[in-house]
């Protein structure tokens, strides 16, 4: 066991921090304000102006995008832990350099040579971005029941159906789309993954508005975005080469990406940012004659949250260790996806009780604390416990895959 970073990684961390101090300028910050799209922070693809795009050019020039990816696909051939160090520092500054997300590892694992050479360098550079076409109106938790249909016709697939909660579909370039290719097979065995450009004719993207970010939350808060989407497919034709991996093996391929979505710097920080924020806030603030930092009940709760946050950090380190060894999660990714989001919710609720009525005040309000970050978190925190597999589905996975407990009888 080794709980430390190497001297090289520590030096790189300092270098990234110095870079951020110099290059995440007021102009960059102004472009970021009010945009909480994707996981934590802005990317080249989601930038609203030239300053962020210029920032990403500089980051790329330093060789800090796709550190752990093979050189032949535009990466740096480095290790996953080093990449994590860079991702965490940037995520703390609201810059998302983990642009390849979960689609690039899936393409790397299951794609053809042509797909790898085409997609991965562009994903790493932030030129391409994938929205995830998984959930449908009839099923979220029961993902394998999906019905969006793709029929092979000659050299093409023809897609018809609908997806829900397709976050980022209004600014991403592509869809990582799970479709049913064999309706007669058992539900897990008739699914395929298609890589679909969003500009393909027949695709309609419509907004779905959520309770988050209204009014616009300050940067660094809440999990996601106020807008997600529903996506309709009407005779959408893509070439057969859009298929990722084998036909009808999409359940396993999809799981590669989903597992990686549940772990990492962004996932970790979104669960623990407010722990740091509340400690730092009560160290420096008081309400007239009342000093929360001297209140024994608050001191106890703050320490409890801090311990839980450390477990979030260490579970992230465990996931990174497993990925670095080239292993696959048995249950560890799912375990982290139970612990960390639920911790984030406990933090949000505990802080609400520490701040009392001030905990309600949103960004822009008179007397709002820290631009309302704690109030916005109340709306944002539990999203993380729902998306990419709810904490209940995650517990099923820990129990069945990790502990070998049997499946219940079908109701």
């Amino acid at each position, binding site marked *: 066991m080794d709980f430390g970073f190497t001297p090289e990684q520590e030096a790189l961390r300092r270098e990234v921090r110095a870079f951020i101090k110099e290059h995440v300028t007021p102009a960059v910050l102004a472009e970021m304000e009010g945009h909480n799209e994707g996981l934590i922070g802005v990317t080249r693809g989601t930038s609203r102006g030239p300053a962020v795009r210029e920032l990403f050019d500089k980051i790329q020039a330093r060789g800090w995008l796709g550190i752990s990816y093979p050189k032949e696909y535009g990466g740096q051939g480095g290790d996953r832990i080093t990449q994590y160090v860079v991702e965490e520092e940037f995520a703390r500054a609201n810059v998302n350099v983990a642009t390849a997300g979960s689609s690039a590892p899936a393409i790397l694992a299951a794609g053809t040579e042509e797909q790898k050479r085409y997609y991965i360098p562009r994903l790493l550079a932030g030129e391409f971005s994938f929205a995830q076409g998984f959930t449908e109106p009839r099923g979220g938790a029961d993902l394998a029941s999906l019905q969006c249909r793709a029929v092979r016709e000659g050299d093409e697939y023809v897609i018809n159906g609908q997806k829900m909660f397709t976050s980022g579909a209004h600014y991403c370039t592509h869809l990582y789309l799970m479709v049913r290719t064999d309706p007669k097979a058992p539900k897990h065995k008739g699914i395929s993954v298609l890589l679909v450009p969003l500009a393909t004719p027949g695709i309609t993207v419509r907004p779905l508005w959520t309770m988050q970010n209204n009014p616009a939350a300050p940067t660094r808060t809440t999990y996601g975005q106020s807008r997600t989407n529903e996506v309709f497919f009407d005779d959408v034709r893509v070439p057969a080469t859009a298929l990722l991996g084998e036909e009808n093996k999409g359940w396993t391929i999809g799981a590669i990406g989903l597992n990686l979505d549940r772990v990492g710097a962004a996932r970790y920080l979104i669960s623990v940012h407010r722990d740091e924020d509340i400690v730092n806030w009560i160290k420096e603030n008081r309400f007239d004659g009342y000093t929360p930092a001297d209140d024994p009940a608050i001191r106890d709760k*703050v320490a*409890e949250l801090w311990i839980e946050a450390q477990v979030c950090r260490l579970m992230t380190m465990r996931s990174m260790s497993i990925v670095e060894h080239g292993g696959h999660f048995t249950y560890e990714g799912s375990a982290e996806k139970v612990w960390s989001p639920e911790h984030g919710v406990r933090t949000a609720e505990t802080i609400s009780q520490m701040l009392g009525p001030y905990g309600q005040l949103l960004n822009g309000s008179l007397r709002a604390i820290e631009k309302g970050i704690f109030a916005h978190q109340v709306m944002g925190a539990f999203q993380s416990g729902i998306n990419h597999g709810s904490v209940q589905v995650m517990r099923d996975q820990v129990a069945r895959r990790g502990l070998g407990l049997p499946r219940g009888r079908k109701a």
Partner: protein
Amino acid sequence: MDVLLDADERMLRDAARAFLEAECPPATARKMESDPLGYPPDLWRKVAGLGWQGMALPERHGGLDLPLVQLGIILEEAGRAIAPLPLHSTIVAALTIAKDGADAQREAVLPGVARGDTVLTWAFTEQDPRFLPETVKMRAKADGGDFVIEGVKLFVDNFAAADRCLVACRTAPAPTGNAGLSLFLVDAKSPGISHTPLVTLAKDRQSEVVFRNVRVPRANLVGELHQGWPVIERMLDRATALLCAQMLGAARKDAEMAIEYSKYREAFGQPIGAFQSIQHICADMIIWVDGGCLLTYEALWKMDQGLPASVEVSQAKAFCNDKCAAVARYSQTIHGGIGFMMELDLQLWFRRISAWTMRLGATFEHRARIARALLDHPGRVVLGRPVPVVAED
């Protein structure tokens, strides 16, 4: 950064587990609850043959010089088997002698520990159960070449079996800051010492020890006179982290027993483990034990690196207190009525885990220590970096 067990660590764990499964069945723990000595001497010598007592002691005193992380693995396995051995108290005292004792003290004590000839313990707590320097009232007065100790210690582990005991005493009356404490290595059979066993939840061996006019030569002072607190604090931190490892080993086994039971116990026409209500608490049990292990081994690793680890130790103990108690409770719940039967071994684990949550710092005390580090020092805290905050370059 690689928080997974490496090949050596896995081998150590597997070997320790296989040994204890063969040599220390639950029946041994059960039997020792009413045994006058409280542990089987032949098992004690066998584990010395495996190098457990001397694992983290210096090679030149008969030890193996291995890191605390590996010792943690051994204590985790000992906890898993609820092995009735005076391992924890012996190791904690021996490590303090190894790290802070004089060379003559080391040579006098440590080889015997490594051989399995010696049992050690340590005594800190008096009436006030908190682990703070001001709770120590026991006086040690200089008298010629000796010190004379007078007072009462509580909750001393394995005192009846111990050959020697490290005793925290007050040598300077008015405490200025943390000064005024000294640590002595005391022969447990010294004239003037008497002890009374306490009747405990775990039916383990703890005593109230009375010192009346007990003479200890000055050469038995461990560390410097009046400057004992930092030595004692390090001892308590090591003791706490190692107790966490022991508790987690027991809790993981306890959870596994419930998981296995739920696979074959049928109700409503199927194994109860097929019900999500059971599956989800099983998942939580493993998530908690895993979390406790990560916190505990990080604390032990930091100590191995010579880094400050007090906050990490308190994180681990506060978390383990809460979560291991919950694991033991859920395991009982899953077993239902049968879990309450004395005949079933499960209760052996429940009572020990519950007892260990109350030793070496209750949850509130450890959280208070963390709160002091977080809130009572200047600077912005960041997860993954030291608290109290140290200046960044």
